[in-house]
């Protein structure tokens, strides 16, 4: 795959074009094409909105003043949270990395029985929200608490974030390179460590970053086992003192942790390009027989599956049976389902609609500004939902009071949190549409807008749908920001689940858990299928 040649407005260097054709009167400057104004305005507005959470943290910190701020930050409680949070990240991320890479390798590169089935099954934990997983484990082992329980649950919830990209990369790696290493006298194990693993660096780093960001952002899963991280502490603080400077100070430290991870990941990437060098279709990799290690490998895959999917499923089903028909009877379940689907659908539509101008500018009018607009949104979405929610609460109360406690604010939060899911897909879709097609339609007499709708829009429809589905998945499983922002009386699946759990009514929570998983499974499968495509972004 070659990177798309997105060079912005190359001056016609050296070619015969500029000089001869342009007479002495004209300076040979090609008039610049300009993007439609409306598109630019929307893209800028959305990106400015995206600056809100970060801006909120910075401005509040500045307004609070150093003395008060340092008093709030440098205290034993923050140190405790920092130790917990860093410990969680430092232990969980490597576990996810090892489990994810090992699972990917077993599934893609060995003749282990059932490899194809496991390939799908191991993506399934993504359909179980971490707080539902936590609920499943607490149901099974009520004594769970503290760091190691958090590590266990988080690892089982988040290892697919490493597994999926690594498996996809393993499928795409040029196998002849591994054969070349073998012909140079390198045994299978050393080929793995010297040739395969280094080429997995980018998916491994990217997946690990996602795991880290999820760990920083997760509230429900850790609150359930009474393990305090920055995010759970911010929610508690918010509950007790509403939106005091203490919560903001904690949010500031949390944001710093996020930025640290982001910078660390991009430094780890380096400037290396691991694209396949050769041309043509890569030879399919040969699967390796595991021999005597087969039972061990199989036990590993089966174990990961049972622990990550089996345990939460078994707990949910047990509670469903225990709760019987009564848990479903009062009609709240149905209305929660309807509300969730409605929020998900509106959120997905709004997010895709507003992501489009940014993707369009990035592909069709690449410039430094377009890149900046894009990256603002990536940074914002990697901030924990709690920070975005706090920012929206504060701004709405101070500046746009009527929006406070409305569904609009919730949708805005979803937009900020999940925009990149739509953006990445739209961008890839747009990049694959040959501009020549649209130009052909215009040369056949269609005005630009009609040409766009008739040709390009049809091409990007599948990727837009894929993006919308991922946003939908995010919204269905979102708990933290929804808890803070939703108008009183809102009953989404996640909120209902959480309030039942808080009332220690585990049987009452089970139907909501089951429905969240059921809504998420198809989208998770879509995610899996997409990662298998060679042309996936």
């Amino acid at each position, binding site marked *: 795959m070659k990177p798309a040649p997105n060079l912005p407005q190359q001056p016609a260097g050296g070619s015969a074009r500029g000089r001869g054709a342009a007479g002495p009167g004209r300076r040979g400057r090609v008039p610049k094409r300009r993007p439609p104004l409306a598109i630019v305005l929307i893209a800028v507005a959305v990106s400015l909105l995206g600056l809100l959470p970060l801006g909120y943290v910075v401005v509040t910190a500045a307004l609070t003043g150093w003395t008060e701020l340092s008093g709030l930050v440098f205290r034993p409680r923050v140190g405790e949270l920092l130790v917990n949070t860093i410990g969680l990240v430092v232990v969980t991320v490597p576990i996810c990395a090892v489990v994810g890479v090992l699972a990917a390798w077993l599934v893609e590169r060995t003749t282990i029985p059932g490899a194809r089935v496991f390939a799908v099954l191991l993506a399934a934990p993504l359909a179980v929200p971490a707080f539902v997983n936590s609920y499943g484990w607490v149901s099974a082992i009520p004594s769970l608490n503290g760091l190691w329980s958090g590590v266990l649950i988080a690892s089982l919830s988040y290892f697919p974030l490493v597994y999926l990209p690594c498996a996809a990369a393993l499928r795409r790696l040029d196998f002849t390179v591994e054969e070349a290493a073998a012909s140079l006298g390198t045994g299978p194990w050393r080929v793995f460590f010297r040739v395969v693993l280094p080429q997995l660096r980018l998916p491994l780093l990217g997946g690990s970053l996602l795991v880290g960001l999820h760990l920083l952002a997760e509230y429900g899963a850790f609150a359930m086992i009474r393990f305090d991280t920055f995010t759970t502490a911010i929610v508690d603080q918010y509950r007790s003192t509403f939106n005091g400077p203490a919560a903001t100070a904690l949010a500031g430290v949390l944001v710093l942790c996020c930025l640290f991870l982001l910078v660390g990941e991009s430094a780890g990437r380096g400037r290396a390009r691991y694209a396949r060098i050769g*041309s043509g279709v890569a030879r399919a990799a040969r699967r390796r027989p595991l021999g005597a290690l087969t039972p061990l490998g199989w036990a590993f895959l089966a174990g990961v599956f049972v622990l990550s999917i089996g345990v939460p499923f078994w707990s949910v089903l047990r509670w469903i049976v225990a709760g019987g028909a009564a848990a479903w009877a009062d009609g709240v379940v149905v209305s929660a389902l309807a509300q969730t689907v409605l929020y998900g659908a509106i959120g997905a539509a709004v997010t895709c609609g507003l992501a489009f101008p940014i993707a369009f500018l990035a592909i069709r009018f690449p410039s430094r500004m377009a890149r900046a607009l894009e990256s603002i949104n990536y940074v914002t979405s990697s901030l924990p939902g709690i920070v975005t929610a706090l920012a929206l609460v504060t701004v709405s109360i101070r500046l746009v009071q009527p929006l406070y406690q409305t569904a609009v604010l919730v949708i805005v939060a979803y937009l900020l949190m999940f925009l990149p899911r739509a953006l990445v897909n739209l961008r890839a879709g747009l990049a694959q549409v040959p501009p020549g097609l649209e130009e052909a339609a215009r040369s056949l007499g269609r005005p630009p807008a009609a040409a766009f709708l008739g040709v390009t829009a049809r091409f990007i429809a599948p990727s837009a749908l894929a993006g919308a589905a991922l946003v939908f998945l995010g919204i269905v499983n979102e708990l933290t920001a929804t808890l803070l922002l939703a108008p009183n009386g809102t009953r989404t699946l996640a909120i209902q689940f959480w309030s039942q759990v808080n009332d220690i009514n585990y049987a009452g929570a089970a139907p909501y858990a089951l429905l969240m998983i059921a809504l998420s499974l198809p989208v998770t499968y879509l995610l899996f299928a997409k990662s298998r495509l060679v042309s996936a972004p």
Partner: protein
Amino acid sequence: MSAIELDGVSKSFLQIAVLREIELSVPEGSRTVVVGSSGSGKTTLLRLISGFDFPDAGTITVSGRRVAGVGAAVPAHQRGIGVVAQDGALFPHLTVGENIAFGLGIRKSGGRASAVRKLLNMVSLDADFAPRRPDELSGGQQQRVALARALARRPKVMLLDEPFSALDAGLRAATREVVADTLAREGVTTVLVTHDQAEALSFADQLAVLREGRLTQVGSPRELYARPVDLFTARFLGDAVVLDATVEGELARCALGAVPIVPTPIRGDASIMFRPEQLAVGPAEADGCAGRVEAVEFYGSEVLLTIRLEGAGDATAADGVIRVRQRGTSNAVVGSRVGVTAIGPAIAYPREPVSAP
């Protein structure tokens, strides 16, 4: 002693036979080329020799050591055979120098830089290529680095899998020359597979033609070009002029008159084959064979003449038309009448079933 010996080697994938009963002996220090069209099984043959795959039947012996066959299954990394793949297969995460040093087993300090420099030099690349990344190199440079990397372990045997086919014409000849010289200088036994007959003829000491999984003919390039075992091989290795003929002893009667043929057991109806350069076009003579020029394709250094022969019995038959290659200085024009004479003997084959025009 042969460097490589294949004895009755067969291989199938999903019940489809890809190689059948291959017998091949590669003399030490020789350059053997296996030529075949795509899908003929040539890459599979190389993969069996290199140890990336194992044969279903037969044995493979490398430098006297049985590496595949009954009781032997030596994996690729223990065979000590150098391989250069179609696109070089350089490690994308390593620099050129690190790629070359990959198989050396020397740490950074211990003379690695000088070894790398020597190897780069060997393939006519400058030493300052070492810190560059593979994707910053042209295709020909990548191939040369791949060769240097494979040479680093001083293999006795080198396998080249269409290593020049991804390069454009000019680069291909130059890279081939560097590779051939380097391997000859190092005395490495080489097996090259290719679908390009010109490349095969020019590179080989020994040429083997692979067709649908069988070796149809093995010998020197001159021998195979001049005396192909069948018409398929004849056409595969170069242009061929094929005429219907009747064999009478050492002569064959055809549209060109009675022409000498290579001794053959065939009698009566036959097809005979000339290489285009065996036919000379001149002024029409009274007692010679003549024809009318129907088309002239000019290629600069040579012209390709399409001539309808007068001697042909049926004026519409395809076999009355021949295509003859002449020097570019030929001034034949469409419609002119020319004489055609054969130089050297033709080769007779059993009469081909009626071929499409």
